[in-house]
């Protein structure tokens, strides 16, 4: 999951980015609105965390710009003042949730999780498809109720696919939403992850949870 983090206060931005990376997110961070707009425009962002008081381009303006560019990823605004005028203005500009500073990182992570699930059309924190269940809170996967041991990258790939279950996901989509920009984007590694996932989730090749659509990508095919 790719997070756009726009926050001018380095003492908040850096530790938060680190926390997010530790949670398995890929983080693009910017210290002002203009840089945030560039990142939001150029990369396939899954969720945005935007501070309202930003230099160069205010948070509200940044959100408006992103929305006029048809970027519809969910956005969480951070506000220090916490008054309703700011909140309402931000939400009306196109944000989806707000958090008042100072906040607990746990709360931020829970909100991000909820926003991501919501954008994929899930209302529960546990994503399920056939016998597979993925708990976004604990980042664990079970098959018929038994835990499945996945590496961090395998989990990321599965989570992205299940969030967008039923939709075709290209390899480029997967690399973009899972790797940091400076990482090697070799599509073969994705194929390796998918092959391993298939083996772990469907050892007997009964359910066929991940379909391959030749030349187009993959699709998580089990019913919700």
């Amino acid at each position: 999951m790719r997070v756009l983090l726009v926050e001018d206060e380095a003492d908040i931005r850096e530790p938060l980015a680190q926390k997010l990376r530790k949670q398995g997110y890929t983080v693009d961070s910017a210290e002002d609105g203009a840089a945030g707009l560039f990142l939001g425009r150029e990369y396939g962002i899954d969720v945005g965390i935007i501070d309202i008081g930003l230099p160069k381009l205010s948070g509200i303006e940044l959100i408006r710009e992103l929305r006029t560019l048809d970027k519809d990823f969910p956005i969480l605004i951070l506000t220090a003042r916490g008054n309703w005028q700011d909140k309402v203005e931000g939400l009306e500009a196109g944000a989806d949730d707000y958090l008042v500073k100072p906040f607990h990182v746990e709360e931020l992570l829970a909100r991000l999780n909820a926003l991501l699930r919501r954008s994929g059309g899930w209302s529960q924190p546990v994503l399920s498809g056939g016998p597979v269940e993925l708990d976004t809170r604990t980042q664990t996967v079970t098959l018929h109720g038994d835990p499945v041991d996945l590496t961090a990258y395998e989990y990321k790939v599965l989570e992205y696919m299940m969030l967008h279950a039923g939709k075709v996901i290209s390899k480029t989509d997967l690399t973009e939403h899972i790797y940091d920009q400076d990482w090697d984007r070799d599509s073969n590694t994705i194929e390796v992850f998918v092959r391993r996932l298939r083996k772990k989730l469907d050892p007997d090749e009964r359910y066929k949870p991940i379909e391959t659509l030749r030349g187009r990508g993959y699709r998580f095919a089990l019913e919700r």
Partner: protein
Amino acid sequence: MGTALNLSIHQRLLLAASLVLSAFLGLTGFALDKAFRSATEEALQARLFSNVYALLAAAEEDQTGQLKMPEVMTDPRFNRPDSGLYAQVSGRQGNYRWQSPSSLGRRLGFLRQMQPGESKIERFNLHGSSAMVLSFGVVWEDFQGRELEYVLAVAEDLKPLREQVAAFRDSLFLWLGGAALLLLLVQGWVLRWGLQPLREVAQALTEIESGRADQLQGDYPKELNGLTSNINSLISHAQARQQRYRDSLGDLAHSLKTPLAVLQAVAEEESDNPRTSQETLREQVERMNQIVSHQLQRAAASGSSVLTQSLAVKPVVERIAGSLDKVYREQKINWVLDVAEETLFRGDEGDLMELLGNLMENACKYGDGHVHVQAQTGRDLYLRVEDNGKGIPRDQFETVLQRGHRADQQLPGQGIGLSVAADIVAAYGGRIEIGVAEQLGGVAVHLHLPGG
């Protein structure tokens, strides 16, 4: 009035009144003068006629039937030389000529030839001074029955008349001028007296500015009562706000002392258990955060003021509901917004947003998907926010509102939003009550805000 002519009210009134007064007195003088002049001229003309009749009455005829004027006239002015009243008679037949004795040594010649029965009044320059002349044509039937035509003319010098008019004018302008001066003085005094309350208000404001007084004291005329009472309530509003800031600052500083002391203890402690230290740090930071945000909210509520505008409640309610819809998308809030278009709130928009935002968010958070917002305007503005949640136990209705006031013992949850609402309502001099929602079964928060 342009900037070039920035006169005081006193000067303006005085200037305008003086202009009107002088125009009025000037026109009066002019009209009186004209009336007097024409009256004297008419009187003169009447006198000339009666003089001519007197001449006719005094005339006799001699043996030849010729007209014969007496040696001495009854009006002495005809007899005295240079008296200013002269008469002349001439006959059209023959060479009859007669001049009154007053014209001794003078050549008259103002007589005109007139048809019998004709008369004419005109001005004539008689030896350098202007005179009014009446020429009158008559037919005289003598004892032989002949009809002889004569012209009688009487001239009166205008000099006395002019002097009379001039004397009248002098006294007229003296009186009018005197009256004008007197009126102006009275008017100046009236204006001073009339504008005295304004000067007093200005003086009282200076007193307040310099800190010697804190309200406009005393009785003012009813035209100024609105102004002075508005100024007074503005002043007390500002004072109340200043007091609130001061109190909040004091409370803030005071309530931060405890967590700061705890933090200091943690910093100085030789910790053998970093986990508990971290836990303490976390707790204290959370506590300080709540203290700061609570005091900030409390100080920021601007409260009602006499001069604040009224704003429509409906759009604010709708905006907040729209925003909360996004945040609580998963709960799919079912709103019933029963707010009439014309419902107005007298106060600051930020306060209303804070009030409704906190209450409506609480309803979303602690309710179960149904929120009912109602607003009514009567004498006061009545607002009600209800939800279908578990509600608050009856015995906690009061404490939940009070909780915010014990800032250093604040707990997260419904209490924060409610106590912020309670602070704002208090700043407006209103009332907040918590009860059970009749239809929805959850919490019902009732607000009464004055002057809706």
